[in-house]
């Protein structure tokens, strides 16, 4: 062993092995085998058919579109709630500590439970519907509806704590004096927020948006339980194909979803690094 360590050429790979080796084995391996599997016909010959089906079949194309929609829409709603929530948590109010602890609870609840909870609460004849019925009101169709309101509700419920957590720390990282400086230079509270705080918190906000987007785009349990039966996202279609035993098709769909997620991440990194160069945001926080 000590001989091995003394050999300079061996030293580097050995030192890297625990980290890179782990990644190669448990991430790279399955990914590579899925990729290879997605390019093979039953008899083992090469084909691009599984991919072309994703981009030509109407149900598949719709699935891709639905995946993106179920990725984007909840994130937009979550963002609109999380930013004001982050700002509220920053201020002092009675019960702030308790609230800061409680709002993180959904992080620990599995997606499938959230889906069931949405059904119990928002389904016609569900809890809320029955509660407002005596007043002469009724809920519109919110679960398995065409616009995926149920999916958005469930995803938002799960995403807000995560997003708020990241955005809160992004805002908290801005020194108080910088905010005060904005005020002393004639900016109102609102102007200081938009011209000083938001730009400085942007890296955190973007990270939160992308991570939740990637998560909800690939989620299975929530769209399967509360999603519309007409528009199924790729993740749900994958399971259907899996049950039919068409593994190469499952692999191909998985590759497309992964490629999409990776593309979004790469876009994020190039975008932020360019902004960092131009505006020196790199050291800002």
């Amino acid at each position, binding site marked *: 062993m000590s001989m091995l360590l003394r050999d300079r050429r061996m030293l580097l790979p050995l030192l890297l092995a625990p980290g890179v080796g782990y990644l190669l084995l448990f991430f790279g391996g399955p990914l590579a085998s899925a990729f290879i599997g997605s390019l093979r016909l039953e008899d083992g010959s090469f084909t691009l058919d599984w991919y072309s089906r994703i981009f030509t079949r109407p149900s598949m194309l719709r699935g891709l579109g639905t995946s993106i929609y179920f990725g984007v829409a909840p994130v937009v709603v979550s963002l609109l709630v999380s930013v004001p929530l982050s700002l509220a948590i920053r201020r002092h109010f009675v019960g702030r500590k308790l609230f800061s602890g409680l709002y993180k609870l959904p992080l620990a609840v599995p997606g499938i439970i959230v889906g069931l909870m949405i059904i119990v609460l928002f389904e016609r004849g569900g809890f809320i519907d029955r509660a407002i019925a005596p007043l002469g009101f009724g809920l519109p169709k919110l679960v398995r509806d065409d616009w995926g309101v149920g999916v958005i509700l469930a995803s938002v419920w799960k995403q807000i704590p995560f997003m708020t957590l990241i955005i809160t720390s992004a805002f908290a990282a801005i020194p108080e004096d910088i905010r*005060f*400086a904005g005020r002393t230079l004639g900016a109102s509270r609102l102007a200081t927020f938009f011209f000083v705080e938001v730009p*400085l918190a942007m890296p955190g906000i973007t990270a939160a948006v992308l991570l939740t987007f990637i998560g909800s785009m690939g989620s299975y349990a929530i769209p399967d339980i509360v999603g519309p039966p007409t528009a199924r996202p790729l993740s749900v279609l994958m399971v259907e194909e899996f049950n039919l035993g068409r593994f190469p098709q499952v692999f191909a769909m998985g590759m497309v979803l992964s490629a999409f997620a990776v593309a979004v991440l790469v876009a994020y990194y190039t975008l932020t690094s360019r902004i960092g160069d131009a*505006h020196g945001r790199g050291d800002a926080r």
Partner: protein
Amino acid sequence: MSMLEITDITKDYGASRALHPVSLSVDEGEFVTILGPSGCGKSSLLRIVMGISQQSGGEIRLAGKRIDMLPPERRDIAMVFQSYALFPHMTVEQNLRFGLRMKNVAKAEQQRRIAHAMEICTLTGLSSRMPRQLSGGQQQRVALARAIVMQPNLLLFDEPLSNLDAKLRDTLRHELVALHRRIGATSLYVTHDQAEAMAMSDRIVVMNAGRVIEVGTPLELYRSPRQAFTAGFLGQTNLLAVTASGRKAHLPWGQLVDLAEDAAGPGQVSVRPESIGIRACDRGGRDTGSCAPATVAGVSFMGASALYTVAIGDTLLKVSQAGGDALIEPGRTVALSFPDRLPLLEDRAPDREAA
């Protein structure tokens, strides 16, 4: 005419009082420094004047107008922060322009003011730099320029030099004074550094434990402080307990000195190390009368002067001598001479810690 008028401002944190009723005024074009140890309430007071902290009571007038209920952006005051608080996502020029844009100053006027501020703060050529690409001194100048372009009725400084190294601090101190002479902005400056306060200010407001202790010009406060705290905080001094009767007072070791005015009973005087004369006694001990009790206990050579610690009776005195030919070695007996007409301090309790 006083530009800033602070009347009976108080600040309470729950049951504890951070500022006892504090009043002070700053005349138009005057440079006033609030000087005090950390925790004395000087920064709290400054933040209350700026409006980023709320007073518990009292009122503030700027140019005759009451401002203490206004939000900071409507007070016509600009502030230079200890941390500079530059916007890290904006260039130097954008930092300077921010306030002007917020106040809807016309484009041409913005340009004129920015160019002027860049020039007088010696920032020319740095306009497109980001704050993180600047040195500490440059960042400090940007913070100053950003306040100056606002042409406010009042400029506030919250220990703006304390993050800089000693040499740069000295340079910038001179620059700040020169700049103040040039633009004549009414300024309120907060520091815990007594040398800074004395070098820069028209007047100094000495604060301790949430109260104004004494107000005066640097010279007045240094030469003839009325309070023991002022005497101890500004420069070095010897605070000596005396027993007065008429115009005379007995020092702790029995020596008799002249007082500035009639007094009776126990009191305290402040004698600066440099106003005590020191002379080595002949080894033969001819003038034993005045020499006998005083012995040099230690000496530190400071360059321009020598600082002696002299033991006399139970007291250790600080005595400074400038331009002596040779140092007096420890152990030698010395003759000390005290100045005439010593003023009696108002604070009776000897407070050696302050010295």
